[in-house]
């Protein structure tokens, strides 16, 4: 394998990691409060706002049901507004972030809804404010599930990031399409696939391990 090719792969991997890291960070930071809101704002819940809850849920669903590749193209004007360009790694971060937010939010919502309602009642009986319940009870209890949600989000992001290669987004997907597909370099394609598999495996096992450490619900600890 030529040093040039190695360099290309290294750069593409770095680009992918950068896109995933930035989109994952911003997307989950925005997705987390939205997820908490979705899980706590129904009728009779901690922050009851059923109408806003419904509207936010609708927006989340709409974003989730748009195929990612369509989302990338559809929000080009917005992407250009934010980054000044619509191609390249930097531009790809925008749709990746937009796609991450509702994805993570729904996972957060599910993780929080999964917590025994008895804990919320116990906290209320202690005189906790709704905010205290969120931070001291819900987030603490959901930590293993949230860790797994973040893991799943990053894994999906790695997949999405390969897709933005199709629209000049840079990274491993871009490399695979330009070299592996368009220039008939099956060796490059193979390497891209292997690197992606390794990345996903690493993220998944790190996430699983972390979640297990946070999870005190079984006797094994």
């Amino acid at each position, binding site marked *: 394998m030529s040093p040039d090719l190695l360099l290309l792969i290294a750069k593409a991997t770095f680009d992918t990691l950068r896109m995933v890291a930035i989109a994952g960070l911003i997307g989950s930071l925005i997705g987390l409060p939205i997820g908490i809101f979705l899980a706590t704002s129904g009728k009779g819940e901690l922050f009851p706002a059923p109408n806003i809850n419904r509207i936010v849920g609708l927006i989340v669903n709409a974003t989730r049901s748009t195929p990612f590749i369509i989302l990338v193209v559809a929000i080009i004007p917005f992407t250009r507004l934010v980054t000044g360009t619509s191609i390249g790694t930097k531009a790809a971060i925008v749709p990746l972030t937009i796609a991450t937010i509702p994805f993570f939010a729904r996972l957060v919502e599910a993780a929080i809804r999964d917590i025994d309602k008895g804990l919320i009642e116990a906290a209320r009986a202690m005189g906790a404010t709704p905010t205290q319940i969120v931070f001291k009870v819900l987030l*603490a209890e959901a930590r293993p599930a949230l860790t797994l949600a973040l893991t799943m989000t990053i894994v999906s992001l790695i997949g999405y990031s390969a897709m933005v290669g199709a629209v000049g987004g840079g990274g491993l997907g871009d490399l695979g399409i330009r070299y592996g597909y368009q220039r008939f370099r099956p060796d490059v394609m193979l390497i891209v696939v292997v690197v992606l598999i390794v990345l996903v495996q690493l993220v998944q096992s790190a996430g699983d391990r972390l979640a297990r450490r946070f999870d005190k619900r079984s006797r094994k600890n």
Partner: protein
Amino acid sequence: MNASVPVFDDVTVAFQRVSKRFAASGESGAFTALNNVDLNVGRGSITGIIGRSGAGKSTLIRLVNGLEKPSSGKVLVDGVDVGALDEAGLRNLRRSVGMIFQHFNLLSSHTVFGNVALPLEIAGMDRRAIEARVRPLLDLVGLADKHARYPAELSGGQKQRIGIARALATEPKLLLSDEATSALDPETTQSILELLKRINAELGLTVLLITHEMEVVKAVTSDVAVIDKGEIVERGHTFDVFTHPKHETTRALLSGLPGSKLPDAVARGLKPAPSAGDRAVVRLTFFGATAERPLVSQLIKSVGAEVNIIAGTIDEIGGKPYGSLVVAYAADAETSGRAERFFTENGLVTEVLGYVA
């Protein structure tokens, strides 16, 4: 004050004509959970509210710390109308009322220490003060050596002890117990009840507990109210209610107690009227001083005939000795007459259950 006959001139919780109706929602129609409930919980008492599931007892106990609001009527805690409090006022009240739950409701992510510390963190206490408060509580419930364990590593009884320590953390004057022993085995139930009794005696804490188990009421409460279909059908000192149950719901709940049920073989053969040669089956209830006298040997002597013991139990209710004995003897007029004379002379409460061949 005589420990076994508590007198409460002072009231911690007062329900005044409290009703609670739930509006129809989804598939469930509107229903009345509580109907015109009047009830006082004496300061320093252990008051039990017993009823079948769906009788409204969960709703009743949740009115005390404002987890539910009454539809009408008032719930007073130390004279404060709970229904009239705003959210901030309710939070204040809740910090002075502890609560324990059937399923413990502990945070799986927190250690034993962390769980007991939680209400103090919520109250904004600093680390050092929390430490100083939590340690003695863990001693009190016997879990000091488990402070760094997680709930999943502990047994049900230990979990409920954490629940109790947590409920006591803010030094409440009132403890609400929501079926706290219903998920525990009988032995563990007894140890948790002993702990509640001790806390009641040592800390002067008023305990209001709801349960569907007569055993629990019998073991710890000084006062009891029986609730059925949202209404209090009977109330009083536990001993009086147990020894002279008036309402059929109370009787039905009591019939589940060991010693109060006839052996199946006897129950099946029971007839309402005697024929020649039959024996009478009679329940003797004795309590107070009579519970400590050698009545059986005296009975046999005075009746002068064979007396069979069919079922019996000696127990303590609300701290007082109580016995129930089912005996059978010849149902002829002469024997019955002697037996009745003996019962009257000794002040025994009797009930003829029927006749067997």
